[in-house]
């Protein structure tokens, strides 16, 4: 999408997609830091099922949609997920894991958790926003 504004159709599609995502995060209890930490401490392996289920559905959509549809239902084109393996990816992923292990909160649950009335997550949200700010200020572009 070149324009930054959204048509009403795209607005609704993006909102509905986010709502499914957020509902799933709440249903799977991933919005609760304690559940994530219990996975990271090998007490409950549920997060493997969450990831497995999500990846499987995503894999099907990413593989099948471009073949069956040709282009997205609301126009535009099918984007591709691009990632590179370099020092930034390694360092970034390692730091992300340390932070995740400290607090049990990652970006999706930090946002979705607000919908469950868990205002303590605003601290994590503020931390993530400040971390992203610091990364942008340090980056050389």
């Amino acid at each position, binding site marked *: 999408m070149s324009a930054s504004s959204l048509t009403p159709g795209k607005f609704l599609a993006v909102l509905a997609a986010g709502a*499914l995502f957020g509902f*799933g*995060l709440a249903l799977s209890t991933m919005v609760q830091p304690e559940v994530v930490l219990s996975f990271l401490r090998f007490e409950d392996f549920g997060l493997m099922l969450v990831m497995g289920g999500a990846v499987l559905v995503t894999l099907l*959509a990413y593989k099948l949609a471009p073949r069956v549809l040709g282009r*997205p239902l609301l126009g535009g084109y099918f984007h591709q997920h691009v*990632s590179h393996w370099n020092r930034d990816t390694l360092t970034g992923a390692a730091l992300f894991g340390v932070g*995740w*292990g400290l607090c049990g909160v990652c970006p999706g649950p930090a946002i979705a958790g607000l919908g469950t009335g868990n205002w303590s997550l605003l601290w994590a949200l503020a931390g993530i926003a400040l971390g992203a700010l610091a990364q942008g200020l340090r980056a050389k572009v």
Partner: protein
Amino acid sequence: MNEAISLFPLGWQHYLLGGVFIGAGVALLFLFTGLVGGMSTVFSSTWSFVLKRSFFQQARLTDTRVWRLVYALGLVLGAGVWWLLMSDGTPLTTEVPVALLLVGGFLVGYGARLGNGCTSGHGICGLGSLNWPSLLAVLTFMATAFLTANLVAWWLA
């Protein structure tokens, strides 16, 4: 069967079903708009509304900042629907201390943006694209997260 019970002391169905819903959200976004929906970029792109610095004014952030915010709003709404319909209506809370939420959050934000992805970007979208750099990123953050969480638990015990 006993093995399965001990792996999932709180049951397993809600985990799998929740994961399918998350995947359905990412899939719906892709089917209708062609967009790839990781969650961490919104924490960079939203700064572009207020900061003029060239890093935040990159097209990949300014062109996507509106839909990413709408996507984030949807996340809150969807979790709110679960809270209204499927919980007892008590707001959820966490025992994780504020300092850990803040410091952990900072590292999560810094790391996810430096490494260009988080649990949803590298995890769900990257693995769903069979992208090997994302697999390496996932293995890396899983390893440091396991290590950190266990060290903290051992230190607090």
